[in-house]
């Protein structure tokens, strides 16, 4: 499938992925992330169940300490 990940086109060798699978695939290991699928916030509790499909627009924002 082809998705948009953080405003970039990305080809992934699967028909669908959960958020957890995507994070593993991309090696995103940050503890605190804000994740949206097609503009809708996905809370951490749903990372194992929310699925990403072909054509989806996914944002994975990394939160770092400092303020």
């Amino acid at each position, binding site marked *: 499938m082809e998705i948009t990940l953080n405003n970039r086109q990305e080809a992934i060798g699967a028909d669908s992925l959960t958020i957890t699978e995507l994070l593993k695939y991309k090696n995103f290991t940050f503890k*605190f992330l804000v994740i949206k699928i097609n503009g809708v916030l996905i809370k951490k509790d749903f990372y194992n169940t929310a699925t990403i499909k072909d054509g989806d627009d996914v944002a994975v*924002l990394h939160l*770092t*300490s400092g*303020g």
Partner: protein
Amino acid sequence: MHQLGQKKVIALRNNINLINPEVKVNAIDIKLQAKDIIKIFSDCDVIVEAFDLAEMKHMIIETVLSEMPDKIIVSGVGLAGWGNNNSITTSYSGRLIICGDGETEVSDDLPPLAPRVGIVANMQANQVLEILLGRGNY
């Protein structure tokens, strides 16, 4: 130096009042939790996130985006260290606006220093003015 030992919220209120005595500041000294955020910021047009810890940033962003559907949150992410002016930008994701480089994290080697912290804080303030006064997309 004369403010050493004071609570941040009290010192900030005093400083703002010295700049402009007409400004009303409601200083609240608590450790914020999701339920407090929903209550305390219910009348705000824009919420500015300036927490130290990523964990707290995560908590307020999730709360605002999921529980407060008419609020915009302007967050600061990635301001540690020094130099590299042009890495600091503003990114827009619906009601979440992030100012900063999006990646540097405060550590022993990368302390929060006034210049980059100030740049990000001023960008957040500038973004809030754009939202409140118009001229932007808000």
